[in-house]
């Protein structure tokens, strides 16, 4: 009896592992396919990328994507960084100030104001597209990287404010009160006490905001018509696509290069990423 149930348990463990690992493998198939297509000449994948009869891997498609005469991915890479870095730093700074204010200061209507800002989080980008398009035209910022940096900065504020406010509220109040008794002002307390304690939260917010700005397609679509200004997300939808045929080699290479930055960032900062994403989810 004992032996039988032990064997049953073993079988179950094996089955569980087999299923779990096959699912993981199945999940990777699309990525493997894209990779297999990107590192081989088109002639080798005409019978499917899963056909490995001939195999001459090279980086030619990556080089071709990077130095494409019409849409060089190198340029797009530079644009994406030029957009995503300021579009991360500005809202983090601005939202941390406000998040702290919402957590610590009492004033009339505070909670309503805060709730209204949080509500903005759920609005689709299309809801501001038309006026933003016109505003940027009026400001002469249309087709200028500055326009998209500004819009990302504003667009990222609601969730970072929420995130930093919830984080600040969880900090012990005693330290700040002690400093206040010693005569420190609001800004001094904020910069000398709160910011150093908030570094992990700031890192989480920065990782998520950077990825959001890097991955964004829609704002770039409506605000940046000139190809020289395109970030990677826009180039990847056009590169390798002819009128009738698609050069899947270049397109796959470009896809990999586009997701490489968020992927590396995720691998390096996994802890912060997950914590940022489920931080408030899990607290409920």
């Amino acid at each position, binding site marked *: 009896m004992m032996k039988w149930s032990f064997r049953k348990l073993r079988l179950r463990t094996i089955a569980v592992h087999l299923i779990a690992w096959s699912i993981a493998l199945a*999940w990777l198939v*699309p990525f493997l396919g894209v990779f297999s297509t990107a590192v081989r000449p088109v002639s080798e994948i005409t019978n499917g*990328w899963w056909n490995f009869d001939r195999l001459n891997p090279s980086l030619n498609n990556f080089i071709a994507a990077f130095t494409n005469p019409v849409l060089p991915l190198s340029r797009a890479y530079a644009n994406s960084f030029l957009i995503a870095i300021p579009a991360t730093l500005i809202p983090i700074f601005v939202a941390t100030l406000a998040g702290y204010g919402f957590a610590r200061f009492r004033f009339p*209507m505070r909670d309503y104001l805060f709730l209204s*800002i949080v509500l903005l989080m759920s609005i689709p980008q299309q809801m501001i597209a038309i006026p933003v398009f016109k505003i940027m035209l009026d400001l002469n910022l249309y087709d200028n990287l500055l326009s998209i940096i500004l819009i990302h*900065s504003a667009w990222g504020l609601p969730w970072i404010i929420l995130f930093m406010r919830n984080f600040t509220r969880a900090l012990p109040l005693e330290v700040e009160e002690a400093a206040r008794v010693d005569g420190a002002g609001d800004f001094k307390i904020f910069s000398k006490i709160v910011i150093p304690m908030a570094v992990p939260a700031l890192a989480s917010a920065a990782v998520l905001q950077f990825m959001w700005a890097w991955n964004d397609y829609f704002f770039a679509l409506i605000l940046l018509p000139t190809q020289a200004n395109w970030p990677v997300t826009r180039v*990847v*939808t056009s590169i390798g696509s002819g009128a009738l045929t698609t050069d899947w080699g270049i397109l796959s290479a470009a896809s990999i290069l*586009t997701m490489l930055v968020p*992927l590396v960032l995720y691998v390096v900062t996994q802890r912060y990423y997950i914590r940022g994403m489920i931080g408030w989810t899990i607290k409920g």
Partner: protein
Amino acid sequence: MGGYTLVTRIRHIPSKILLPLLSRISRHGLRPHAGRALFFTPALVLLVLLVIYPVLQTIFLGFYLELPGGQRQFTGLDNYRAVLTDPATINVGNLPWPPPLGTLIHNALWIVIHLPISLFAGLWLALLLQETKGASVVKSCIFLGMVTPMIVGGVILRFLLEAGVGVVPSFFGVIGVRSLAVNWMVHRELLLLGLILGSVWLWTGFSLIVYSAGLTTIPKDYFEAARVDGTPPGRMFFRITFPLLKPLTLVIVVMTILWELKIFDIVVAATNFGGGVGADTLALQVYRFFFYDSNAGKAAVVASLLTLLTLISTSLILRRMAK
């Protein structure tokens, strides 16, 4: 701050807020904490100029007809009527199948099909991975979809579904299902379905990660006690695990619905705009009305309706987020 307290508080605004405010101002002036406004100023300036004003402007535009020459004419609900009776929004003629069924129905299908599958797949995997060695590696593999830019996700879905490169048509060819061994990208019976099912691959990581984290917060004693009592595993799940995960389920449901309502990049990248009508979504329709048809009024109406739907969904978890 719950919905109930919100209502009761609003009723007390005059007495609870205005009176103390007035008395405070009369006693101290605004001075003592005036510097604190600086904490909020930069955020409010950015939000008002680039988010709140545009949102209000979009609502406003929905009630107007833009005439050539930059003039506007108030048309009341005409744009709303035009949008809701447009076959591009709701295409009664093609119901029940095949697409195009209209953007509103496409988004609804996205929710009806994609939400339960990705939610339960994530939950099931989270439970399965509890007893798996190397679970974190499996989770990372599945979570890759969440890290992938949606635009690349769309490209990859096309890569899977298109004839020639696509592993999906080839697979069905090999197992002899002729009707599915075709180019999914050009068959309107399959395109929308392919994108919806394919995006399960992109999004399941979300519910998996959230549920996995949630499962670790359930005290082991609960299961121990139930096991001692001889509770069968199925009952344990429905009596202990699932009820305790309920708040998380609500969050996942809302976040997933928001994601599904806002679908844009995936469809654009997979269908390259043009073939997109068969898989058109509300978000894409806004773009189409404004940039293709130069009809700001109808575009604004679709955007407003979409926003209304997202706000309704969010209100379900607002209390939790702002707690």
